[in-house]
């Protein structure tokens, strides 16, 4: 009995020792040398793996950071400047300060503004619906409301408004990863500069039809009249294809454009009520 135990122990010990020697040499032969800083950078990142940086995940981004000679275009939108400072200090590089961004859905075509002209009963995803037809209203540029952006958001930052059916962004949860931007087949979502107190002045429309056509399809469409372009003291507004666009990097939130917009396509959000004359055109309530 006891001899069996001894044999077993000896045999296993010999096998173990042999395996250890083989494994040691194999490990030496196939050794992968990895920069230890990759682990450090990976650690410093938020670990959301959202792809907002343009890389396949946080690890891939960390590798790219370590490889890069300057951080320049490398930016983690989720972690923001704080994370990038940490990454920079690990790597001994200079962090480039980036303005935080937030997604905005540029359509305000609720049922009351944009009457339904047809109905769709196919597969309920925006990608499919937009590939077979233009939408349930006369506006081919507007939101379809099937929630591809909602599905794409990993951060619960998008809610589908229960009444209007149009998605809304919860600014404090949005990390500007851009997943919704890619998911929207109508190209409605834009990452805009995050302003103090989440204030916004946006042309909430993508309709590129001529004024009359746009207006007929939706009462709050941008008709391309150009009043806002003339009014803007900071040259922040440009007009292309009958559609105004406010560059969030140039906008100083003066709200002069909101006052002159004849259709209410320009929207202001999270501002206190005006003193001189009360705001009438405010269509969407802030989410938070």
């Amino acid at each position, binding site marked *: 009995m006891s001899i069996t135990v001894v044999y077993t122990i000896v045999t296993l010990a010999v096998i173990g020792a042999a395996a250890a020697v083989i494994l040691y040499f194999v490990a030496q032969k196939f050794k992968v040398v990895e920069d230890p800083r990759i682990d450090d950078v990976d650690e410093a990142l938020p670990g959301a793996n959202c792809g907002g940086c343009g890389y396949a995940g946080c690890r891939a981004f960390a590798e790219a950071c370590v490889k890069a000679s300057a951080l320049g275009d490398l930016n983690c939108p989720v972690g923001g400047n704080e994370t990038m400072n940490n990454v920079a200090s690990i790597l001994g590089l200079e962090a480039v300060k980036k303005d935080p961004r937030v997604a905005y859905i540029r359509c305000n075509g609720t049922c009351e503004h944009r009457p339904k*002209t*047809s109905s769709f*009963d*196919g*597969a309920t*995803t925006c*990608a*499919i619906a937009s*590939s*077979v*037809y*233009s*939408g349930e209203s006369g506006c*081919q540029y507007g939101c379809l409301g099937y929630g591809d952006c909602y599905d794409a958001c990993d951060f619960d930052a998008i809610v589908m408004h229960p009444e209007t059916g149009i998605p809304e962004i919860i600014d404090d949860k949005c990390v500007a990863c851009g997943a919704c931007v890619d998911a929207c087949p109508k190209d409605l979502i834009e990452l805009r500069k995050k302003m103090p107190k989440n204030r916004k002045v946006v042309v909430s429309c993508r309709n590129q039809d001529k004024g009359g056509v746009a207006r007929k399809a939706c009462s709050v469409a941008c008709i391309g009249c150009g009043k806002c372009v003339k009014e803007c003291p900071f040259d922040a507004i440009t007009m292309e294809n009958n559609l105004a666009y406010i560059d969030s990097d140039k906008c100083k939130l003066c709200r002069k454009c909101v006052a002159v917009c004849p259709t209410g396509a320009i929207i202001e959000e999270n501002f206190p009520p005006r003193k001189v004359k009360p705001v009438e055109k405010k269509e969407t309530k802030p989410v938070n």
Partner: protein
Amino acid sequence: MLKTFKIGGVHPPENKLSKDKKIEVLPLPKTVFIPVAQHIGAPATPVVKKGDEVKVGQVIAQSSSFVSTNIHSSVSGKVTKVDFSADSSGYPKQGIFIAVDGDEWIEGIDRSEDLVKEISVDGPEIVKKIQEAGIVGLGGATFPTHVKLVPPKGMKAEVLLINGVECEPYLTSDHRLMLEKADEIMVGIQLLMKAMGVDKAVIGIENNKPDAIKLLNEKCSAYKGVSVQPLKVQYPQGGEKQLINAVTGKEVPSGALPIAVGAVVSNVGTAFAVYEAIQKNKPLFERVVTVTGKGLEKPSNFLVRVGTATSELIEAAGGVPENTGKIISGGPMMGRAIASLDVPVTKGTSGLLLIQEEESKREEIQACIRCSRCTSVCPMGLEPYLLMTLGEKQIFDRAENERIMDCIECGSCSYTCPSSRPLLDYIRFGKGKVGAMIRSRKK
């Protein structure tokens, strides 16, 4: 035992309501909108501008590449604008608006009803004339006919198949054309055979059109090499690859064109258009359209000028019935619901179908129960349930390996699914994405 294709297929209720209605000439509309993209391939380039006077048959948009065709004016009058207007999907497409004034045709078109049997042109000239006349496949796919007739290098056509199957329920435009223009179709077939250099042609007709089979059989005796093949009623037998399989027994390999097995398929409507283009010098600017539906006052077959608004056709057939749920351009299986009645008739419009409210709604989508009915009805031998999932999950490289591009979008899978799953919606979406993937790879 009648011939049919080997795998899959369904047999939806036929509902050929208008099969005994003679083709009527629809009165001229007041205005037309003629899109410049009525075919597969590059859109034609408009060659008229606002204010120009045009005549019937005049070229108003020129073919822009080999896979493209000319567009001719279907009416005479004044061009009011060259602009964009919504097509059946609601997206704007470029086209030419013409205000109709009288009915003046360009010189050279033979407007008589006399049959011209004598063929005085040679093969290449036929192809050239077909190209000039803007003829496309009138079965619905609208592929430019002249491209089909010139086989790629190293391939040779052996047989011409004429598609008189009309397997879509409700539609009767090809059926009526075969009954009323049999002689012209036979000459058209001769012309196509000459253009391709083949001496054999087979007309495939489903067995639910015995009058057409009988009539064409009689006509065939006067022409060498042409025969009629009656086929068992089975959808989608009108599909090119299915028809080839049904008539010749050959299978077109995955991803290949019918010419790979020596066959070229043309619709009876196309054969008729070829006859008119060559023997009568008349370009393609009108076609037979079935207007049908269970609630419709008088389902009819109209000869319609291209560019006429659908509202005019429906008005002529008795107006939109009250309980209409959907108006479909094409047949119920492959047609598309149209978003507005301003959508014009194009070269590819074979029918307009008004579906009643209660029939038009899709059933609630339920979970897949793995019954495999979709797999057994798929005429291309694909696995629709799998392709749908791959489309849903956006796994497009796998979808490509599962041969999603072989799908002919016949809709048999969605039709047969007991859980009413939108199989074709997702497969079509996947096809679009995989197609884009393949194109970007080729660049």
